[in-house]
């Protein structure tokens, strides 16, 4: 019979600190350490070297969302993707990367430059469009973002595009008027195509701490967030805030950003991510 492994206070403290420093947050850290304690009690782990892999497995469970086959197929044409998120998270850059990703899969992509507010936001997306080699719908600065979206939907449908990706202005979820504007954009899209937007991706900056949970909850209250993109994981931040978020909301991380170049996008891998967290 195997003896029960004793997880001493020093090891627990060490693990707690590693989890906290990865931005996993107190509640989820407590939950993970409790599952570790139970695992030891039930002899699911019996050697000290099994502790970290056990924890990584527990983290992987929390961030894995069962995806149905239909999640990944693009049943309708155009497949409309709406990018949302707070200021500077990496939305515009991620659109460039995504457009390239889908173009490499042989898809025809159209971009909608619906950030009509921020200085040179349209120019920034237009430059990405040139790099990828795809269509773009854009209006003059300070024009109505809804008008851009309306025109982009019309163009995407008329030109038989496979994918339409809509860029929106960064906005803090505390700004009610900006959240209302986002809801209006969604209505404009749905009016032209009832099933659209098919994907609403909330972009989260990987360096963000516990506020990321507020962002997901608030954006999801106004829009139907179907997936998360976690950016800037090439930095020293581990992006651990998503663990509690995915566990609580059931919204999956779909992609991660690992740099500023066009290829610096990967499909989210719960196994790799959970191992890297510790």
């Amino acid at each position, binding site marked *: 019979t195997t003896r029960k492994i004793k997880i001493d206070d020093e090891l627990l403290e060490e693990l707690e*600190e590693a989890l*906290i*420093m*990865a*931005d996993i*947050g*107190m509640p989820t850290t407590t939950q993970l350490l409790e599952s570790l304690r139970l695992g030891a009690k039930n002899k699911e782990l019996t050697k000290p070297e099994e502790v970290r892999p056990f924890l990584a497995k527990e983290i992987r469970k929390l961030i894995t969302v069962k995806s149905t086959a239909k999640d990944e197929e693009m049943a309708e044409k155009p497949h409309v993707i709406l990018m949302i998120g*707070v*200021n*500077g*998270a*990496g939305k515009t850059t991620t659109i*460039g990367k995504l457009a390239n990703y889908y173009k490499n899969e042989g898809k025809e992509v159209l971009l909608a430059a619906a950030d009509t*507010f*921020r*200085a*040179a936001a349209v*120019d*920034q997306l*237009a*430059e*990405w469009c040139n*790099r990828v080699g795809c269509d773009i719908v854009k209006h003059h*600065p300070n024009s109505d973002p809804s008008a851009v979206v309306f025109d982009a939907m019309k163009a995407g449908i008329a030109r038989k595009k496979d994918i339409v990706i809509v860029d929106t202005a*960064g906005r*803090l*979820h*505390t*700004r009610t008027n900006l959240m209302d504007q986002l809801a209006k954009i969604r209505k404009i899209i749905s009016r032209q195509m009832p099933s659209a937007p098919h994907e609403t991706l909330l972009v989260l*900056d990987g*360096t*963000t*701490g*516990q*506020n*990321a949970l*507020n962002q997901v909850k608030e954006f999801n209250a106004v829009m139907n967030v179907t997936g998360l993109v976690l950016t*800037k994981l*090439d*930095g*020293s*931040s581990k992006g651990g*805030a998503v663990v509690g978020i995915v566990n609580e909301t059931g919204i999956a991380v779909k992609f991660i950003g690992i740099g*500023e170049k066009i290829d610096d996008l990967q499909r989210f891998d719960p196994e790799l991510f959970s191992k890297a967290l510790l």
Partner: protein
Amino acid sequence: QLESRLSATLKKIRGLARLTEANMTEALKEVRTALLEADVALPVVKDFIATIKKESSGKDVHKSLSPGQQVVKIVHQELVKLLGGELVGITKAEKGPTVILMAGLQGSGKTTTTGKLALLLSKEKYSPMIVSADVYRPAAREQLAVLGEQLEIPVFKGDGLSDPLKIVKGALKELKKESLDLLIIDTAGRLQVDEEMMAELEAIKKLATPTETLFVADAMTGQQAAEVAKTFHERVGITGVVLTKLDGDARGGAALSVKGVTGCPIKFSGIGEKSDQFEQFHPDRMAQRILG
């Protein structure tokens, strides 16, 4: 928030005459949790708790404050002390034009803050020029040019130049020619772990000899705020910090992390996307916010 949590913990010490290390242990645990939930970096939390322990140990339990109120008061005072100090503005050059260098991670708000700072200082009788040394981000230079246009502040365009050092050199020359007295240099966002980009920042600083190097930090940054700021400070030398996006609802523990590891004053707060949504940093307001 912290006060109501502490009051439950500290009901036990109500009858006691003195706050001792023993009866403070539970209370300190609450403070630790509150700070971590506010995203204060763990090493900074540890130092802070040690300070609070020393400050509250041996203090007589206050006649008119509950023990919970008393601990919160000590924590608040200590936070304000750490975050603040005297209000500091921009250090003017002793002779010649004043140069300010902006630095920080990707998307923290450097370009927007460059515009805000130029507007603020133009109202303080400076004659500013702004320049973007960001040759990487698509339309980065256009972004700053649009801001300059909106604010009617001269922008050194550096058309045809693709080397950040050549652009900065050109801007310094133009500044002299136009007899302007302030140059703000916007730089590309960079990771503190990117050796090449950190070396570039050092080279820009060496060339421009700024009196101010401002680290622009996003208020919602998590645990790595301390490590990032520490590295920027060690490599380049920061003289001040700007905390952006404070119009959000992030608790902003990054403020304590950055101040805690660099000792550099937090000079300004970004409180919105517009160029006038910018103000002097308020340590007391930040302390309230961090404590939730």
